[in-house]
């Protein structure tokens, strides 16, 4: 079990670093949703199912949708550099 | 019963693992979606069946989850493929030309 928590933490940290360093906003949104995914798994592993439920509902779903819609509405994808059409 | 459940769980894990491996190995987005979505759908279904053999009293929620995975996973992959097409990723261009001839 401990190894699973460590694995989830590693994935979470990787995705969080990716969120910071990615130049494309949309890719960063995808990485953020992976962060909250890993966080929900950690909560579930640590036997806090109610917290995990809230985390899955709010962070994985709503914040991803909101961020994606924001990127779409504000046209921030125009400032994408490099990380896109290849 | 438990052994059958374990076998289904194992098969599901193998297919999920193969799907992820396909994601890493395939050369372009569309092939990644192909390998990823098929393997993960059957893998998830197989895990659900395995859990059903361990805990038959959970059947109702497992059925809802199975229907959910079956409906959403192909829709999700199709929509990503469509978005990839819209962003201008077209690795198969020559093949398409050959065909129309």
């Amino acid at each position: 079990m401990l190894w699973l928590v460590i694995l989830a933490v590693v994935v979470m940290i990787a995705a969080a670093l990716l969120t910071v360093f990615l130049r494309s906003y949309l890719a960063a949104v995808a990485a953020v949703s992976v962060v909250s995914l890993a966080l929900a798994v950690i909560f579930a592993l640590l036997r806090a199912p109610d917290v995990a439920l809230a985390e899955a509902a709010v962070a994985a779903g709503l914040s991803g949708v909101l961020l994606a819609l924001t990127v779409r509405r504000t046209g921030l994808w125009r400032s994408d550099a490099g990380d896109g059409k290849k | 019963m438990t052994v059958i459940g374990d076998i289904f769980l194992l098969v599901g894990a193998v297919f999920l693992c193969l799907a992820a491996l396909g994601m890493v190995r395939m050369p372009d987005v569309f092939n990644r979606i192909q390998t990823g979505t098929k393997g993960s759908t059957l893998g998830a279904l197989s895990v659900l069946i395995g859990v059903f053999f361990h805990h038959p009293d959970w059947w109702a929620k497992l059925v809802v989850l199975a229907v959910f995975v079956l409906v959403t996973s192909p829709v999700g992959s199709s929509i990503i493929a469509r978005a990839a097409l819209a962003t201008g990723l077209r690795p198969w261009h020559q093949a398409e030309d050959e065909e129309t001839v």
Partner: protein
Amino acid sequence: MMGLEIGILGGIAVALLGIAVLLGAARLVLGPTVADRVVAADILTIITTAALVWLALVQDSAIVLDIALVFGALSFVGVVAIARALEKRS
């Protein structure tokens, strides 16, 4: 850590799931285009849903199934939203 018993087959299944998560995360980190990363996130959510169902079995608590359900539903909506936003940038 928590004294949960997992059989040998179950242990192998966990290891495979862990490898699958790592491989998916590798595609998320490497993937040259945005679409690659979104696909990786999508596959990771499906793997996670399956892993949560399995976790419900290990912890023997049906509420984890609810987490899997909510998680599957909302992450699908999230992936669709990202894909739609990606589509618009063409």
